[in-house]
């Protein structure tokens, strides 16, 4: 009896095995990228019914976010403004700006009929996630941390993945994002823009001791400064000429008692 199977068949199991390995790796890699919010959400940029430009309003005109999204610091939602807010500037008898622009037609129509402008939601948390704007904005997390540089966007696009892992990254190490409360809506803010002496003076004015300041940041290695100048000098020695984000974040985290919850019940109920 001759060889029933041809010779090349001997290698088939190995070939199949190797192929399966490659395919498996490929599928896992593809799934772990393409099926995650990083790919599915970031970059989502739907056309809105009104061609409202954040670039003009928040960027060029430097309007504060809270001029329109007025309740972000008081409520879980950061509200989309009513027509009346638009008409404060664009309305007849008010600002009169671009009164008859055809781009504003949907807004005028909404005011007439009472039927709201159907804005398309860009950032949508699932129904079982209870995110609260006020809990973040009052504690040194800026709009830009989650929404990106809205002031540079003509049309709002999804900037961050806003996946659970992304949330937890910050909840586990909030010092990477905390900033002084006065800078919350300053989308261009960089820690390096801060005046170091003013920052530390602000802390000391709130009756925070030099001991506490030294304890907040392990890089001080427990060395307690005697006065403000000493402190600023010490910080300069560690972080260099410019103020670093970590330097600010660690101080604020400690003195504001920022302890972001990591338990399920914080966001899921």
């Amino acid at each position: 009896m001759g060889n029933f199977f041809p010779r090349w068949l001997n290698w088939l199991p190995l070939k199949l095995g190797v192929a399966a390995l490659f395919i498996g790796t490929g599928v896992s890699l593809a799934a772990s990228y393409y099926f995650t919010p990083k790919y599915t959400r970031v970059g989502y940029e739907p056309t809105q019914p009104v061609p409202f430009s954040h670039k003009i309003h928040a960027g060029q005109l430097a309007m504060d976010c809270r001029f329109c999204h007025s309740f972000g610091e008081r409520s879980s939602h950061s509200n989309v403004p009513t027509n009346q807010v638009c008409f404060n500037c664009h309305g007849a008898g008010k600002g009169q700006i671009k009164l008859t622009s055809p781009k504003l037609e949907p807004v005028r129509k909404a005011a007439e009929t009472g039927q709201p402008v159907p804005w398309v939601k860009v950032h949508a948390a699932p129904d079982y996630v209870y995110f609260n704007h006020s809990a973040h904005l009052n504690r040194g997390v800026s709009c830009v941390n989650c929404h990106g540089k809205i002031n540079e966007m003509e049309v709002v696009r999804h900037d961050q993945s806003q996946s659970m892992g992304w949330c937890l990254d910050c909840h586990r190490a909030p010092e990477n994002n905390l900033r002084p409360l006065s800078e919350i809506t300053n989308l261009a803010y960089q820690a390096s823009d801060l005046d170091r002496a003013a920052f530390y003076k602000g802390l000391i004015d709130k009756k925070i001791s030099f001991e506490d300041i030294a304890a907040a940041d392990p890089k001080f290695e427990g060395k307690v400064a005697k006065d403000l100048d000493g402190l600023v000098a010490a910080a300069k020695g560690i972080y260099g000429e410019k103020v670093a984000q970590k330097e600010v974040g660690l101080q604020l985290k400690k003195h504001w008692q920022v302890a972001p919850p990591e338990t399920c019940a914080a966001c899921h109920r």
Partner: protein
Amino acid sequence: MKKIFSHPEEAKTGRRYWRSVNELENREAFLKANGREFPLGDELSEEERETSRRTFLQLMGASASLMGLASCRRPVKNILPYTKSVEWLVPGKPLLYATNMPRPYGATPLVVTTHEGRPTHLTGNALHPSVGGGIDSFAQASILGLYDPNRIQNVTRSGKAKRGREDSSWAELNAFIAKARHAWKEDGGEGTAFLVGAENSPTTSRLRAEVLKALPKAKFYQYEAINRDAQQAVNKALLGEGVTTVVKLDKASRILSLDCDFLGLDPVSDDSAADFTKGRDPEKPDAMNRLYVIENRYTLTGGMADHRKPLAASQLEVAAAALAAEIGKITGDTALAAAAAALAGTADEALKAWIAPAAKDLAAVKGKAVVLAGSRTSEAVQALAAGINNALGAYGSVIQLLQATAAAPAAGSLADLTAAVKAGGVKAVFSFTAADLFFDAPGAEDLNKLFSEKKVVVIHHGLRSSKTQRASKWSIPAAHYLESWGDVTTNDGAYGIVQPMIAPLFDGASENEVYLALLGKKTLGPTVVAAAATPAAGAAPPVAAVAGSEDDPAYTAVRETFAKIAGSLDEQKWNFTLRDGFLKGSKGTAATAALNAAAVAALVGKAKPVAAPSKDALEVVLVPDSSIWDGRYINNAWLQEAPDPITKLTWDNAALIGSKTFRELGLKQGQMVEITTASGKLALPALEAPGHVSNSITIQLGYGQVGVGSVAQQAMVNFNTSEVGEEFAKCGFDAYGLRSSASEWVITGAKLAVQSTIYPLAITQEHNTMEGRAVYREGTTEEYKAEPNFAQVTGTDGHAPDPISLYGGQFGRKTTTNPDGFNYETKHQWGMTIDLSKCIGCTACLIACQSENNIAVVGKDQVIKGRVMQWIRMDRYFATPRLDELPASTDFTGEELENAEMVTQPMACQQCEAAPCETVCPVNATVHTEEGLNAMAYNRCIGTRYCANNCPYTARRFNWFDYNKRPLDELYKGPLSNPEKTGVREISKLQKNPNVTVRMRGVIEKCTYCVQRLESAKIVQMQSQRDSKDFRVAADGVKTACQQSCPTGAIEFGDLANKDSTINKTKASLRNYTVLKYLNTLPRTSYLARIRNVNADMPGAAGITAWSKLNS
């Protein structure tokens, strides 16, 4: 060596607490059947079994294709902002408004939570001077009435074809009213009658008077199915015209109730339960009040009694007379003793032996003792009670007398109306009463016939579809009290405003508005809004609450009344009244009445002794129902599924029969019996009721209505009707037919015939059994004084060393020796106590929880399968005081069961620190938070149900179906259900709390300590502190929904880590114990043992609570 854990053995002497006779007597079989967490599987019929494979493939195919379709594209979601900013409204934050719920014979002050204009949750108004701040289950569930999918939505009128109804319009109705007004100008309203309910509204009264002024020949009649007519008549005879009584139970230290369920369905003041529990603090055992109850069946009041005497309702006069004779003798009120002597003579020895020490006890605290007669007891009982109260000096001290000043026109009774119709003097009847005249009036059938014979035009105004509505010529949709302007006075005369939370969902009109229309001051129907006509893409958000506008006649009418009561229309005063919900300082006028002793004697003299009921001449007692009252809440799913506090029956009524009679008749649970009285016949299922007197049958009223709505009709939908009979395809059985106008509430001489059919009854108390473990602890004041920590040393709790927890995990306070413990320094640590001395078992907490936490209703068939979803289970245990060794099984005598005691214990997730559920979850869906909560992440749960199996408190619930997504009768069809019916109706979604996930099929859920409220409280604190330091929520700064609703304040909740919290005081009580302590699960919820204030001279006093402390 493997350690096998076993629970401590059960007591050998006397089974201590049991939930059903079945559990008591057939323990082995009962536990085998019901000891499992999820007792019954689905049983498929032969036909279903055959088609199941095909259905499965269909289902899989359908879901696969749906999945494919759904995942193709990102669903576009819209944000729909308000076009105009709404006053006070911050999107995402609830707004609270004070208002009042008008009710027959009173009102309930409320605070309404609204989310973006939708009312979602009700709580009591704690600022109101007349009430304690809790509310009962009717008020709590009334919000669901607003969103009832079967509310009357259109104006209809009887069609030209017989029996048909045709849609009409508001315009036609307005034309009809205009025509009628024209005719009234001629005849002055001759032949027009108004049938009204018993609400106390000054504006309504004023408008009625105005209507009467405009139509001098019209007549007003009052009708409520469950009425207080007899009581009011007695009050009038004894105390004078227009005198009402308000009993201040907090001023009483000895209370005796003659079938007065003042803690449940027969309140004697605005908040009887709160007043009663004020004198019920076991920490001051000498100041505790003492409650004696005489009743034929168990009521909530009977359950709270220190001494209870089961007595046939027809014998109540004898008991009252015996008591009056005793008290007359002791206090020297010879007139009273003489009046009662004849009846008292017929009392048997056992009754006398019970009455004598009770009378002595009452008379010993003259001025602080009171006897309460139920509002539906006979005239003689009420007169005797009044006489006794007079002898005890209760008038003026415990009982306040108020003089009615309302300008309401005098209203005739239903009998007067019937007579007028018979005489042919009535052409049209405007029916405003919430009762259903042609269903629940005595002789309703004949009345209906009489009305149609005499061609009386009925114009019906109401919220729900009813028999009267269907028989009416015109039907006007009513506005819910949350949609309309109005006002109320509470029993003690405080004036309150009813303000609308939302524009009428179906354009309904309130009673006031109909009067205004009849007076020509208003056009009924929707106010025309230009914009509403063109709905654009995407539904508009629900309309926000309408503010009163000057051109709204109902609003103006209320303001006019307010101006009269407050002295002037002071805008500031009006605004404060709106904010608070009541007018500060308003109260009733005290009456200066003295009891007419001669009238007492006369009323008592009329009573003839009734023979005690016997096997051949049973007595039937008709009572209002704790779920549907007189039948008006039959379409309210929360109330229907809230178990009856005593019988634990849902979705039905039944003939409650005492154990002795039940056994003599050889009945089985749910077996149909036919009851025949002089005026009617009724077949209904029998239910063995421990604590019920023999030869007496209690039946709840209001059930058995047809055509009243989808909820009521769904009760039987998933049953195979060919098995149980087509005639059962409705909700319960109509007992109104058994009564006549001569004997409305207690009917003697009834006969009972046993039928063979067994009817399925959905009783919750056989599920989730605690398997007889020692979970309830109680004692007497004497015992408490002698051994204050008895609850902590009962059973093994006192002597066993602290065991090592079986379940590991984080527990205890974080210290140097326990570094893994909970952080009490910087974190909140939540905890709860439930005071069993105060808990009356009323189920208000259960409905509050349902309302706050979006808990689904599952329907009758699912309840039978043990799938009820309510997070709080109100356990009711009976106990029989037998202390000797127990022989085998069925050996409890009927008498023993008749005298069983009753206790209640609310049981929800105990939030164990070392939680057994957490260790078995394969996906970490239930984990601990650093604040001590046993958290549940629904989106992570895969539905293994291991946690529920491992929960020793059986506190976890599983979503077997998409209860929140599908109508109850389409549950089994899943995605193949009728497309029109699939999905929740829009209107039902409006009630949901946006801060709590609406759970889907296949996940476990349970009590979370209202984590959404805790998180919100913490965030509010963050908002105010920002970069400061104090992030701890203020002591008692957050309340759970159950705590807020509890009428007696039995539930205490708070931050254990805050030394100022009340919870730390209650936890420090020596009565504080945890259930199943020996498991060392370290629950955060603990209970305070119940203390009964026993009178040692009473017969049977020695046995009371004695078995609570038997060693296990």
